[in-house]
């Protein structure tokens, strides 16, 4: 008895609680020619690259996308038939889109209005290496400590 849970393709046999002798199973696995492996991998890759999920979901997504795209084109054409001002149309359209993206995106966490600068960006903006910034900071702290009240002011070297 072999407690196996191999998940093969539908076309290939699956070995679950099989009573086949071990040697036969090994022969079967080793007997896969290069060509068979090729076709197996082709099918597997197809499945890996595109996992469509339930058909209804795919169909609904395609319909939603197509409806939105057709609506944008036809409503834009309708607006342009009234007043031939493509740039004004685009400016309004983009502004409305940004407002909606900001509201919904921030609520859903997709959009962040600000982000901290990374160390690499800081360095690239100021053109100062990170090590120099630390050395400068140490130097300034030392000078501030030296110039505390009660101590003699010493000029910066």
């Amino acid at each position: 008895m072999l407690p196996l849970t191999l998940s093969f393709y539908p076309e290939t046999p699956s070995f679950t609680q099989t009573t086949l002798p071990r040697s036969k199973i090994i022969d079967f696995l080793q007997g896969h020619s290069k060509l068979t492996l090729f076709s197996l991998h082709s099918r597997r890759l197809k499945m890996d690259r595109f996992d469509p999920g339930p058909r209804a979901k795919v169909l609904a997504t395609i319909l939603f996308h197509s409806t939105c795209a057709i609506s944008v084109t036809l409503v834009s054409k309708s607006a342009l038939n009234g007043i031939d001002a493509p740039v004004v149309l685009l400016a309004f359209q983009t502004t409305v889109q940004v407002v909606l993206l900001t509201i919904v995106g921030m609520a859903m966490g997709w959009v962040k209005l600000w982000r901290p600068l990374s160390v690499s960006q800081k360095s690239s903006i100021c053109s100062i290496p990170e090590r120099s910034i630390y050395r400068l900071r140490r130097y300034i702290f030392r000078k501030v400590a030296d110039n505390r009240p009660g101590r003699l002011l010493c000029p910066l070297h």
Partner: protein
Amino acid sequence: MPLALARVVGVLAKTYCLAAVDASFYQIARGLLLPFTLGLSYLFLPSKYATFPPLALGGAAIVISGFGIGMVSDMNKMLTSSRGLVLGVGSSMTTAIESIVVKRFVGAKAKETGEGVIQMVWMSNVIAIGLYVPVLLFSGELYDPAIQALFAPSKDSTTSLLSSQSTDFLYTCTLTGLCSFLLTLATFLQIRITSPVTHMIVTAARGVAQSAIAVMLLPHETIDKGRVASMVCILGGSALYGWAEDRAMTKREAEKAIGRTEEGRPMMETEEKEGEFKEKL
């Protein structure tokens, strides 16, 4: 910034093209999008993205012939002007450039900064608003009486018509903004859920549906034999291209995977499982 610039130029060209041609002809006017994208990919993208099987090139050739049939038929019947032709070709070119920019820069930038696609879209739109300001000033559209009535409504009887026209324009602009927002989300969803081949075929089929709906809903829209023949060619060519590309990609990846196995490295989950299975035995 490159993405925002490419987007602004692409969207402007598309909108000017839409203004110049019928909505039922729009998809045909932009028929050269696929051939331009292939050409630019070949020129500017690494070779792994730019190797096309003969069948895919055949599909692109059918698409070009569809564009040619549509243009010749329409220009003979004086349904489309040479301005429409130029804007259609220009719009296809700028959209293809936008695709290349997205492929070349955005993926790398997103990896570098760890930002999501929606964040990138939002940022490029914010930059685009800033870029529209000088374009608005230079286009002269702000001096259009109907647009001026939008910003300074008057109770005068002569301008009341303009004002109502402007209000309609404002409403439709807002509606297109809402639809564009939904389209952004839908595109994001579609990329995640469907394959590139499905996306390409659906896009071509959508053009046909769009033309049919435009004829039904919008005034002065017509459809004739030339346009139908052109749409059939564009749809068929796109489908053939998508199918051939998918087949070639699957074959390439399988070959690569087999090659890696021969080198003695673990290839895929299945083979790893096969190995584990053998060890267990």
